[in-house]
């Protein structure tokens, strides 16, 4: 036997194993109903293959593994699938999850199955056999075994965990005593898969009978040795057992395979032997039922999916004296609130404890900083510090104190004189760390998607603009081609531009080609109308202001608008006049001059009739007439010129 190394900490709780390790394993009768959760293992849940109403045989595949880390589920007994529904899961959360419900027919009719000779097949086939049998770690965690057997690194040592360090549990103890041959056969299969590494079976010295049987069974077998280790909780922890047997520590965040080691439970070894040699999938397991409330404490061969209530009835558990029903051991198990949950592949113990055995959940006291927890911590952490950080929700500090390395063994809580539920704090902190990490990843993912979307929108906009420009260029090219083909045709764009320019130059010219005189008149009228309106509104406004009318504001707005309009009309008129070269002042002056000359002529003619000095007056009349004619001519010429101008403008 090789050397044994110590590990830090650990506790010695009362073992309480003698209650259940005396009687032989009893095969439990087939219950009326089996409930099989689709996720009994670590990894992705299995996918149900059959429909409600399907008849199944014992050992028939009913749900297949999804993905690499997953496990098949088989019908543990023959019967009919009566439901695929949500049932309470054997989980500390007591949440529901999808389960296959089988009503058994009691026939126990096996599906055709046959074992294979492990020595005559290659590794791939052997591995496939173990994989399809749905074998998961039987020690408690439930990790699919085939994944562990497919290690990529060179495995130098196989460690078989038979320590069973947790109080009360004796399932592995009884299994070794009764099935040592099968266990050794299973170990040989595992060794074959891992290229024949050396194998050590680690077993605590409180199982003297099991050690004796195992040693005897191993006589004449090379490469497998039994290492008896001192009884101390939690020596059965994977990392602790590795340290005890090899002196090596699994690195932070690493797995045993990093050290060239792989660790399997004795129960797993037996399940592998059954799967390979007999062709039987994992459909039942040995579960300890113990505690003061159990009249028939012992180990039972239980079909997977058996309801805990059925098992309790079979083991004659007195429900009245059961203060707490725990699935798993007293250190690492969890309290069941609902008895209608299933025994699953990793259920190694049902502890029906009386009030004297497990104290009911007690109020806890303040931490007195005694440091006991640090002394017993097998992972060499600082439980007290972790407790404070978890309590204060300082998760980053808890992480930097290696919260992730806590194996949740409960040694610290067990020694705590203040009865602080330390592990629950660590589990809470671990959960929050996990949630926060997941949230950070989600946020990062969302940010990426958001940025991608923004970029896409910008790109779309640019692409649209690009396309629009390309279309414009293409249209221009098409036009140019058209023009080149027909050079005499008037360029429509140039024509349109000319029209626009013309309109710009003559903004007052109405589109309906009015005669120029009319246009001028219309402008004049418009200007006059607006002026009048403005006057009226201004008057109304001043009246309103005077009488304090409440519509002052709206009137004011109207007046402002009209002022603008009037100004615009006036401006349009002036612009038109200026353009035509018309000068209303000049015209007026000419008119006045002509009228004056006419008046003078008429006066003089009168005077001629009266006066006798005809000669003088006649001369004067001639002069006046000439002046009148000149004035009239000037006026006529002016008016003629303006009309001609207006016509010209209109034509152009």
């Amino acid at each position, binding site marked *: 036997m090789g050397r044994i190394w110590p590990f830090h900490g650990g506790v010695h709780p009362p073992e309480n194993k003698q209650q259940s390790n005396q009687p032989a394993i009893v095969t439990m009768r087939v219950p009326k109903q089996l409930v099989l959760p689709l996720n009994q293992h670590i990894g992705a849940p299995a996918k149900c293959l059959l429909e409600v109403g399907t008849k199944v045989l014992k050992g028939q595949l009913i749900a297949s593994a999804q993905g690499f880390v997953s496990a098949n589920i088989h019908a543990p007994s023959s019967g009919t699938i009566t439901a695929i529904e949500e049932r309470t899961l054997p989980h500390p959360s007591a949440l529901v999850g999808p389960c296959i419900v089988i009503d058994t027919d009691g026939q126990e009719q096996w599906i055709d199955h046959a074992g294979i000779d492990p020595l005559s097949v290659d590794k791939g086939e052997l591995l496939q056999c173990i994989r399809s049998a749905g074998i998961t770690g039987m020690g408690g965690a439930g990790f699919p075994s085939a994944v562990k057997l497919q290690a990529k690194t060179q495995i130098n040592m196989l460690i078989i965990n038979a320590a069973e360090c947790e109080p009360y549990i004796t399932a592995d103890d009884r299994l070794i005593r009764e099935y040592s041959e099968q266990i050794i056969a299973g170990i040989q299969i595992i060794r074959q898969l891992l290229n024949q590494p050396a194998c050590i079976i680690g077993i605590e010295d409180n199982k003297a009978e099991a050690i004796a049987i195992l040693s005897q069974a191993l006589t004449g077998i090379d490469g497998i040795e039994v290492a008896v280790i001192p009884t101390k909780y939690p020596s059965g922890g994977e990392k602790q057992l590795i340290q005890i047997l090899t002196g090596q520590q699994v690195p932070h965040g690493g797995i045993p395979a990093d050290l060239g080691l792989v660790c399997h439970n004795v129960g797993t070894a037996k399940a592998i032997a059954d799967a390979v040699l007999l062709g039987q999938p994992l459909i039942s397991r040995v579960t300890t039922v113990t505690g003061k409330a159990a009249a028939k404490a012992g180990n039972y061969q239980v079909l997977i999916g058996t309801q805990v209530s059925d098992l309790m009835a079979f083991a004659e558990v007195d429900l009245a004296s059961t203060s707490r029903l725990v699935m798993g051991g007293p250190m690492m198990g969890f309290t069941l609130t609902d008895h209608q949950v299933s025994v699953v592949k990793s259920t190694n113990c049902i502890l029906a404890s009386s009030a004297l055995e497990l104290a009911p959940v007690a109020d806890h006291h303040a931490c007195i900083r005694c440091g006991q927890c640090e002394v017993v911590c097998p992972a060499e952490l600082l439980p007290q510090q972790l407790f404070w950080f978890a309590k204060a929700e300082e998760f980053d500090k808890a992480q930097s104190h290696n919260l992730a390395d806590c194996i949740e063994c409960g040694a610290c809580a067990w020694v705590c004189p203040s009865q602080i539920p330390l592990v629950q704090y660590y589990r809470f902190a671990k959960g929050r760390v996990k*949630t926060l990490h997941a949230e950070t990843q989600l946020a990062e993912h969302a940010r990426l998607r958001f940025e991608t979307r923004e970029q896409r929108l910008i790109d779309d906009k640019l692409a649209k603009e690009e396309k629009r420009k390309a279309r414009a260029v293409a249209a221009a090219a098409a036009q140019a081609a058209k023009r080149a083909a027909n050079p005499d045709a008037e360029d429509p764009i140039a024509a349109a531009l000319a029209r626009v320019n013309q309109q710009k130059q003559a903004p007052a010219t109405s589109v309906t080609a009015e005669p120029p005189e009319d246009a001028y008149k219309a402008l004049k009228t418009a200007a006059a109308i607006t002026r009048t309106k403005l006057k009226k509104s201004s008057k109304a406004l001043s009246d309103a202001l005077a009488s304090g009318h409440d519509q002052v504001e709206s009137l004011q707005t109207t007046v402002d608008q009209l002022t603008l309009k009037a100004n615009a009309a006036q401006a349009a008129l002036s612009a038109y006049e200026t353009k035509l070269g018309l000068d209303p002042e000049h015209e007026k002056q000419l008119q006045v001059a002509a009228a004056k000359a006419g008046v003078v002529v008429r006066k003089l003619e009168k005077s001629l009739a009266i006066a006798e000095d005809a000669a003088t007056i006649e001369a004067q009349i001639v002069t006046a007439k000439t002046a009148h004619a000149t004035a009239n001519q000037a006026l006529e010429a002016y008016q003629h010129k303006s009309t001609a101008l207006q016509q010209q403008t209109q034509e152009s």
Partner: protein
Amino acid sequence: MQSLYFAIMVLALLALVFGAILGFAAIRFKVDGDPIVDQIDNLLPQTQCGQCGHPGCRPYAEAIANGEAINHCPPGGESTIKALADLLDVEAIPLDEEHGTEAVRTIAYIREDECIGCTKCIQACPVDAILGAAKQMHTVIVDECTGCDLCVEPCPVDCIDMLPIEVTPASWHWQPPTDIIATSNHAHHAAPQGDVSHG
């Protein structure tokens, strides 16, 4: 006198050498962009909901870098405020209720038989988490949804529900123990008492 010149020369030489080192470092280790904005942005929940009054998380990160209050992010809640306070070395202040209250994280679900296929929610979604086409039924890709609420308002037939995320055994986590400090003297001898399953 000579020693004085010597000292000045040495100091001048040192100044030159260190200046050269600093100048080199300034070019060699130049940091592009504004790292503080990136750091703030990394702490924000990236729901892109706009409840802070900015069109997305990054604009708010820039606003914080320019002195805006750190308590305008309801989806982030107290934990984000705490993280921002730690980063910026300012005091953590309670969430500004004006911008909303901290609620459980929700996910949008479209009642698919009521959807008329208007694509308005698709345009509103800042993370492209809604799938559909014009006059076709739309649906939310729940894994991508940030629960920002922005799709609810544009829906003309009100067929989008914001539902809290369901807790599954995989996502469930332990709650902290109820913090009761015992006052009476409990006996502590019945073994084993280290049962950790106080839940």
